[in-house]
């Protein structure tokens, strides 16, 4: 079955350090991949997407993600973490051009001052 996996339940980073939140996918064909973020008591917010083209995708709030076909990964990165980046992050792919999103389990990012 097609899926995305987020191998880490939680990532802890010190403010100012680079951060990486990992995502790997098992999707046939050309995957449409997404990152969403959920801040406390808020809905999911779209961060970025990879559809086609440049493997490095830039998104909101200084985040970026790199599509790596050989490693089937789509890790989320930011050069310098902020305390306000602390939230729950979800990787997802779109199933078969239907608009239906299939999500990973989520990774909690804690950025400490």
């Amino acid at each position, binding site marked *: 079955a097609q899926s995305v996996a987020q191998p880490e339940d939680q990532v802890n980073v010190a403010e100012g350090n680079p951060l990486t939140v990992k995502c790997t996918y098992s999707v046939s064909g050309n995957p449409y991949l997404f990152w969403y973020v959920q801040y406390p008591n808020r*809905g*999911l917010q779209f961060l970025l*997407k990879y559809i086609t083209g440049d493997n490095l995708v830039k998104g909101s709030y200084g985040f970026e993600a790199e599509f790596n076909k050989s490693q089937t990964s789509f890790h989320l990165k930011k050069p310098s973490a902020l305390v306000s980046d602390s939230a729950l992050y979800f990787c*997802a792919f779109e199933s078969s051009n239907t*608009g*239906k999103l299939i999500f990973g*389990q*989520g990774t909690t990012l804690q950025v400490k001052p």
Partner: protein
Amino acid sequence: EAGVTQFPSHSVIEKGQTVTLRCDPISGHDNLYWYRRVMGKEIKFLLHFVKESKQDESGMPNNRFLAERTGGTYSTLKVQPAELEDSGVYFCASSHWTDSYEQYFGPGTRLTVT
């Protein structure tokens, strides 16, 4: 522009009772999706409306769940009768037909069945 809104934000009901969740999508968005996140697990797709029509309801768990989108505007998701395993956060999302890749999510309804 108002975002996707959901009502109520929280609902606590007893097993066997009925609950109706409501979602108001962004005005003009034809696509409306329902998702659910059970405690600590991944967010799972429930169904997809295009205007008032059900495009895909493959994620609906069973016939205790009934979704409607009368007139192609707001949508309701009714659970009747509720079971303990229905507890979780129910998200609604909408998107414009020209950009179905970017879905806008509501804040969710946290449902607790006791």
